């Protein structure tokens, strides 16, 4: 490795990508000043809402897009100047199914084996291993169009792994996949992790983010924070109380008004309140709600999950930046 920093396989420095949006030609910043270092063998999860810049980030790191400014070195190679050489070292699985629907499982794999110049006995070994890995042996002669969503994703992953890349980039690989296949897919990713492959995966699911060694939270084109799941959860200021009131909407207003409450989030019938001291605040909150005629079915201290941490981290940002930016973003096609 030409890298000076030991073990770092991805180093991004101030990556920015600005798109000219059609038809009016307005400039849209999809990724802004993203700096990131990923070590060998890590599983980095990129989470964030739609339009946060996850896909653009992956496309910048896989040299599919040129950054407007900033640089990135992946596998020790510059993504702009050494893009061609880089392609031997990385695998990429786009968000939408990008294989040939009219070709069979075998033919799709064969095509990518040809493209990467795989031949001889090694080719057969790898194809068989990946088919076993992805449990697709029984479907070798089936056309890709006739595979289920989950099988298509696994085939795409197999094609992306054929050349044994050091780093694999996956863009929302489990979106639209049933829960069982989703779990299987993650088992495969963790298997790769154990083999020492570096994995960068974007996902809208927080439970998947929890399985990563590190999580990058993206919001409005920025990487807000990038750390281990545990560290991110610790960043949340205060302690968390989970409340189950009879009327969530009424209770939200009441709890927000109670002194010492930093933040309130709603999750269906649940109300999550961040307070300085859980033990001290719990009876006060219950009393406030019941005093206002809202029954409380359950109230207990809780451990913040990534989801709470994420919302807690992005909330000050979104308030600060105001509505204009939000509106601008809503119209942006996913890039």
């Amino acid at each position, binding site marked *: 490795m030409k890298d000076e920093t030991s073990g770092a396989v991805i180093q991004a420095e101030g990556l920015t990508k600005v798109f000219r949006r059609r038809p009016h030609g307005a400039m849209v910043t999809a990724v802004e000043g993203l700096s990131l270092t990923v070590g060998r063998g890590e599983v980095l999860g990129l989470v964030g809402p739609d339009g946060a810049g996850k896909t653009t980030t992956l496309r910048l790191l*896989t*040299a*599919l*897009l*040129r950054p407007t400014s900033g640089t990135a070195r992946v596998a020790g190679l510059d993504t702009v100047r050494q893009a*061609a050489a880089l*392609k*031997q070292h*990385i*695998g*990429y699985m*786009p968000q*939408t*199914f*990008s*294989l*040939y*629907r*009219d*070709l069979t499982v075998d*033919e799709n794999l064969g*095509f*990518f084996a*040809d*493209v*990467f*110049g795989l031949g001889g006995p090694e080719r057969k070994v790898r194809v068989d291993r990946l088919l076993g890995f992805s449990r697709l042996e029984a479907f070798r002669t089936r056309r890709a169009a006739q595979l289920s969503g989950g099988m298509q994703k696994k085939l*795409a992953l197999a*094609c*992306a792994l054929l050349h044994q890349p050091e780093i694999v980039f996956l863009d929302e690989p489990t979106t639209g996949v049933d829960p069982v296949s989703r779990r299987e897919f993650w088992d495969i990713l963790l298997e790769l992790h154990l083999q020492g492959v570096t994995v960068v995966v974007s996902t809208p699911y927080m439970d998947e983010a929890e399985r990563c060694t590190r999580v990058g939270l993206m919001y409005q084109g920025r990487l807000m924070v990038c750390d281990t799941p545990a560290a991110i959860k610790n960043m949340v200021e205060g302690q968390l109380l989970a409340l189950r009131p009879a009327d969530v909407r009424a209770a939200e207003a009441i709890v927000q008004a109670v002194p010492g409450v930093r933040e309130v989030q709603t999750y269906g019938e649940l109300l999550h309140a961040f307070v300085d001291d859980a033990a001290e605040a719990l009876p006060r909150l219950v009393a406030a709600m019941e005093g206002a005629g809202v029954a409380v079915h359950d109230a207990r201290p809780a451990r913040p999950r990534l989801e709470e941490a994420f919302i807690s981290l992005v909330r000050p940002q979104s308030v600060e930046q105001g509505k204009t930016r939000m509106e601008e973003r809503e119209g942006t096609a996913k890039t």
Partner: protein
Amino acid sequence: MLKRLWAITHKEFLHIIRDPRTLGIIFLMPIVQLTLLGYAATTDIEYLPIAVLDWDRTAQSRGLVEAFRASAYFRLARAAESEAQLAGWIEGGQVRAGLIVPAGFGRDLLKTGRAQVAFVIDGSDPAVATAAYQAALGVGQAQSVQLIETRLGVSAASAPGIDVRPRVWYNPEMKSTNFMIPGIIGMVLQFFTTLFTSLAIVREREQNTIEQLLVTPIRSIELVVGKTLPYVVVAFLVVLEVLAIGVWWFGVPIRGSVPLLLTLSALFLVTSLGIGILISTVSKSQQEAMFLTFLTAFPSIFLGGFFFPIDAWPWWLQAISYAVPMRYLLIIIRGIILKGVGLPALWEQVAALCIFGPLVLTLASVRFAKRLE
């Protein structure tokens, strides 16, 4: 490099095989075109239906009518009783011309050696009318020569006079199919390759498979060449199909060298593939690519001189036709097939294609590379 090229070509062949209906249409379309253009788009007249109004009813008049019938240009569809009836048939389209032999035709002919007949032609289709007019004149003249010979007791050949003997070279029977079929080869070479090249590339983008390709070591030149190669093969098979039908069914003679024909066709393919790639860079969908291909095909066919001879056009339209690659191809194909000419006679056209091809292909490649980013 070659391995990756082959990977793409192989994959593209699989796409073609997976879609047998499209493949069937590719090979069926020239047959339809050949049938339409070989039979229907002909301006040759053969057994044109005419009506005869014979007021004379003598041996002489019957002789003339028989000469018309025997010419094979005309078919005596009806015998009219009056001029009004004959006019009605021409109006109604039942016959395209009418031969009116006036009373006294036979008598005049015997007495003075001169007589007149009327030949009425439906001029609504100028091409047919001209042909019918020429044919009628010809029949009349042949009859006159015979008359002179019998009256003077000499053969016309020994009579004094200037004998103009027109000889039509290359297409002696002046059959339109001989003109059309080489043209169809040009159309196949342009239209098919442009259409299928642009579709194949746009499909890759439309179905987003391009995204997966771009993270592989495939270079854009490999992608373009690899994808178009199978369609070049298909285009050549279709050309051979058209040639075979032309020769064995329509009796089109191939006087020149088939290898030269195919080589120069390949040269033209550089241009039409380039146009296809160019179209693919500006089209967002396969539908758009299809429309754009049609848009380029029509001016090509007309301005290239497929139907109408370029020499008859106003100067400015002729000038424009120099910018249409099809013009050169058609001269080459018709030259080789009908005249049997070789490279020395065609060097201007070959030079033009040598300029057009790389120009279009370079432009296309530049645009293609940009579009990928």
